[in-house]
């Protein structure tokens, strides 16, 4: 009982400050005052020094003191309101019995004051205070009240109290569920504010005595915990409800758009932001994949630059960069997208009469569909988007907009740091153990993870040679080669045509991946399968480096049903050398179909090991990681 009451009394001065008087008394004074007339207090309950002086408990013995307030509140009751009745019952019976109930009641009882005070059990002390013998009160009023009122002493205070009760009564009657919720939210906010303030107050209070210091804090805590509990519970429940629904949706894989279905394509075109002209001559086998005339989208998108109002500039920029090929590579695309979303969230304002959770999700979806129009998403990006959306969905309703935005931005940063950067570091750490002196390592294309591994191994002083295998038309390997050579690694550069020759001297193959699917298939830059197959045939171990966020539960057996088609011109023309045009004039003939595949699927047979941030696993263990990873990070 003691602590609880003390808590009330503690909160009392605050209640007074805010509830009664607009002019806030300087906190220093209120707290530094008590020591002066401290003698009576010390004898009494050691609780809450600053409060004691205005509250009756200042009288001395707290147990003795209880009756008078009751009397007083009784009188109040009689005179003013029945609403007070629950309060009167508290101090004695209810209080001891059920704490949460009391808490609830109090909250409904005098909402106005609580909101301001931030400490829940506030209603009583006020009453008590007013009931106190006038003499005591006057001293208090020096601290808290303007002199004019203090002279009126108790009587005035009681009146004020009455007012408040009267005001609080209708409120109580009204409080619906929603209101209570709003109340709780407000209290929470107030508490947060109070905490900030509180850091001052306890410091000051400590002057009075250590006991005073500890008790209020103890007393204050339980209600706060209760509050938290009651608040968090519903939101959690909701989250729980939602998640399975989502899961269910995801269980049945979303039917991917089949681009040979004319009617659907028509519909999609109407929705599209980017005007796309479909390529005419497409390879029969890949009709179901989107293929557009490259070069038609960019100018159109550019002209609409200012007209796409809902699109955030950062997202727009990333989209343009995807479209023009300025950014490629799984990690980079994912990071660029997440950073753009972060910018967008930073600038996001919830429109009136909408909730952040729903509206922001819709907004992100529109961004995503825009990005898809610029270039089909990679699996890693899909996972990142799922993560972001689930984070949005999980936001507690009680968070204010700025808090929600901050937490989302933190989440995005966390995702980038943990799932990509840290994961890469871990992968490097694992993979480096597989590099020995005298090794000849082969890599294909330009994988950021593989690059880091090679550079790190070089830094560690390992003696090895690198074979960079590259392929037209992107020639990404050249960029990698440039960076490796600059760092002083000894490299060999060759095109994929020569891979069977060079493979004889290779001791290990390191490959990057766009995604690893749950049957162990590695979905990666086209040509990877070929390299892996040659390596397998020559019994060279193939190590695939892939961050776990790129894993996907999908099963894929070939590279036909899901793939991406690149610009067919890229393979028919040599960039930078217009004069080389062997296919000139043939490109538009109906007999010629150009196929520029972007990805291929490497069967798990060819893969010796997948190096991920969870360690080195055989490709057969991928489903385990997919399962665990989902549970751990994405959906919980």
């Amino acid at each position, binding site marked *: 009982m003691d602590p609880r009451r003390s808590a009330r009394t503690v909160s009392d001065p605050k209640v007074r400050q805010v509830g009664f008087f607009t002019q806030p008394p300087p906190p220093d004074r209120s707290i530094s005052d008590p020591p002066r007339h401290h003698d009576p207090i010390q004898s009494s309950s050691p609780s809450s020094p600053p409060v004691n002086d205005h509250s009756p408990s200042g009288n001395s013995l707290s147990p003795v003191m209880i009756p008078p307030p009751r009397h007083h509140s009784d009188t109040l009751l009689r005179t003013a309101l029945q609403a007070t009745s629950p309060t009167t019952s508290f101090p004695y019976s209810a209080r001891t019995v059920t704490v949460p109930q009391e808490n609830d009641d109090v909250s409904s009882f005098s909402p106005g004051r609580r909101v301001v005070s931030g400490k829940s059990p506030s209603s009583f002390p006020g009453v008590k205070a007013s009931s106190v013998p006038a003499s005591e009160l006057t001293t208090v009023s020096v601290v808290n009240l303007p002199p004019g009122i203090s002279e009126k002493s108790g009587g005035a205070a009681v009146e004020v109290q009455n007012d408040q009760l009267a005001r609080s009564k209708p409120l109580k009657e009204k409080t619906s569920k929603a209101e209570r919720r709003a109340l709780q939210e407000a209290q929470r906010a107030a508490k947060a504010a109070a905490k900030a303030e509180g850091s001052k107050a306890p410091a000051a209070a400590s002057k009075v005595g250590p006991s005073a210091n500890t008790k209020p804090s103890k007393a204050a805590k339980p209600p706060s915990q209760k509050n938290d509990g009651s608040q968090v519970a519903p939101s959690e429940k909701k989250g729980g409800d939602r998640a399975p629904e989502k899961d269910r949706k995801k269980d049945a894989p979303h039917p991917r758009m089949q681009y040979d279905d004319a009617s659907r394509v028509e519909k999609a075109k109407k929705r599209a932001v980017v005007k796309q002209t479909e390529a005419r001559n497409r390879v029969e086998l890949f009709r179901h994949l989107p293929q557009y005339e490259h070069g038609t989208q960019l100018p159109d998108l550019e*002209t609409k*630059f200012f*007209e796409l109002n809902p699109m955030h500039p950062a997202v727009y920029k990333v989209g343009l960069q995807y479209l023009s*090929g300025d950014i*490629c*590579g799984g990690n*980079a695309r994912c*990071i660029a997208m997440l950073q753009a979303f972060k910018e967008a969230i930073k600038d996001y304002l919830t429109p009136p009469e909408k909730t952040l959770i729903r509206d922001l999700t819709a907004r992100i979806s529109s961004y995503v569909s825009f990005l898809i129009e610029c270039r089909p998403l990679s699996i890693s990006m899909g996972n990142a988007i799922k993560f972001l959306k689930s984070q949005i969905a999980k936001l507690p309703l009680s968070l204010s907009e700025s808090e929600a935005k901050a937490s989302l931005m933190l989440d995005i940063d966390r995702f*980038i*740091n943990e799932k990509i950067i840290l994961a890469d570091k871990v992968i490097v750490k694992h993979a480096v153990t597989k590099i020995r002196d005298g090794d000849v390592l082969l890599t294909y294309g330009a994988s950021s993870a593989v690059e880091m591994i090679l550079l790190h191994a070089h830094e560690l002083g390992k003696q090895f040679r690198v074979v960079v295998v590259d392929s037209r038309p992107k020639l990404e390997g050249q960029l990698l080669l440039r960076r490796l050579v600059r760092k002083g690694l000894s490299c060999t550069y060759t095109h994929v045509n020569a891979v069977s020759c060079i493979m004889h001297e290779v001791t290990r193959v390191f490959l990057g991946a766009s995604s690893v699917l749950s049957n162990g298939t590695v979905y990666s830059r086209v040509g990877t399968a070929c390299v892996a197959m040659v390596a397998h045939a020559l019994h060279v171990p193939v190590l695939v480096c892939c961050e776990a966020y790129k894993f996907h539960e999908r099963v894929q057996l070939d590279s036909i049903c899901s793939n991406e088609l690149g610009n067919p011109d890229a393979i028919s023309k040599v960039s930078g050398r217009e004069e080389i045009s062997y296919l000139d004039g043939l490109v538009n003939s109906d007999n010629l179909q150009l196929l520029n595949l972007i990805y291929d699927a490497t069967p798990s047979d060819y893969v010796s090991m997948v190096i991920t941030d969870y360690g080195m696993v055989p490709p057969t263990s991928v489903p385990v990681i997919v399962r665990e990873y989902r549970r751990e990070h994405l959906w919980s």
Partner: protein
Amino acid sequence: MDFQVVVLAGGTSKNLTPLVSKEVPKPLLPVANRPVLYYVLHQLEQSNLKDLIVVVEGKDAALLVGGWISGTFVDRLHVEIAAVPEDIGSAGAIRAISHHLTANDILVVSGDLVSDVPPGAVAANHRRHDAVVTAMLCSVPISGPSESGSSGGKDKTKKPGRYNIIGLDPGKQFLLHIATGAEIEKDTRLQKRILRAVGEMEIRSDLMDAHMYAFKRSVLQEVLDRKDTLQSLKQDVLPYLVRSQLKSEALSNRIPRAEENGNEKVSSQNNQVMVSQILANASTPSFHDLCSVSHDGSAPIRKTHKCCAYIASSSSYCARLNSIQAFMDINRDVTGEADHLLSSISDHNNIVGPSTKLGTKTTVGPHCMLGEGSEMGDKCQVKRSVIGRHCRIGSHVKVVNSVVMNHVTIGDGCIIQGSVICSNVQLQERVVLKDCQVGAGFVVTAGSEYKGESLARKEK
């Protein structure tokens, strides 16, 4: 999209005397019976850019322009007019309104640009490359040297000044060299450093700087602050930025950002570095990046910035009204081949106002425009000309390849070829004008013949 638009409308340009005057500043010069500024504003409006700052030279001109804009674009555009003193140049004009500029990027458009190139394309290109400046280049108008047979010999001498010598990288994305104005006459100097970095440069003289720029605000302001001598955006600021792109003094914000990171935790900084590295490695580096990185591949040693070019497709129309010849050409093109710039197009190839009165046997050829309220006598011929509102034209008058503004009275038997006749001019009977400019309010006495002259009220 975080862009601010500044329209540099100009004032009373000397190039265009006697067409412009105190009453008709350059922005209000009629092109196909609409002020030239209309085309820019309309183009911007089409692109959904509705917050504009229009900078006009001279207070009086600003008043006139402001009045016109508020009359025409009321409820459609949010335009702020800024009056700046005359002869401070375009850079000076930007300096004067510099404190109003807050957005990340600034789109600076010349008010005399008549074009259908979407400004969004320039802006998007600018954003995509994260450039310091992006300039719009367009092919030199077709009606340039080859086709201007009937134009005055006077203008021909000016012509070389209009064109630029422009160096581009092989991908036609970056500006490597630009020479404008008087520099063209001299020997062109190329910078070895840039040439070495790029490896290959394409020099073109068939492109014209259209004076539509997207600037990064911070850089623009800094350059303008630091270099007081820079007078004009086109002739000083742009070449300066292009010249210094590999040894940037204008700070692209890379270095300061790195310093900011230094204050944070080491780990997070490492992560940041890795993130930026991944991003950088993912894209094909431009020569800027290659040049800025020292040979051992460590941190950037040189600051660079990118100057981009957006080359308008050859099918789009783009011209600047900065000379009398250009004025004639634009007038002809707008009524002719580029008539999509005018929203209203009749079924015929010409536009005849609703209340014009034509005499008997009067023919109005294609690519003509007759303003409302004009009256023409019998047996007149109008070919490829623009005639303004409330003109009175007598009989047996021939108007070919000319621009006649509002309230002009033309007596019987006049022959007008390749001329510009400003408002309130009176041509008495049997006047013959060829390649002349007649200033506002001028009275040409009966029977006189002029060829290739500029007639204005005070001087002559």
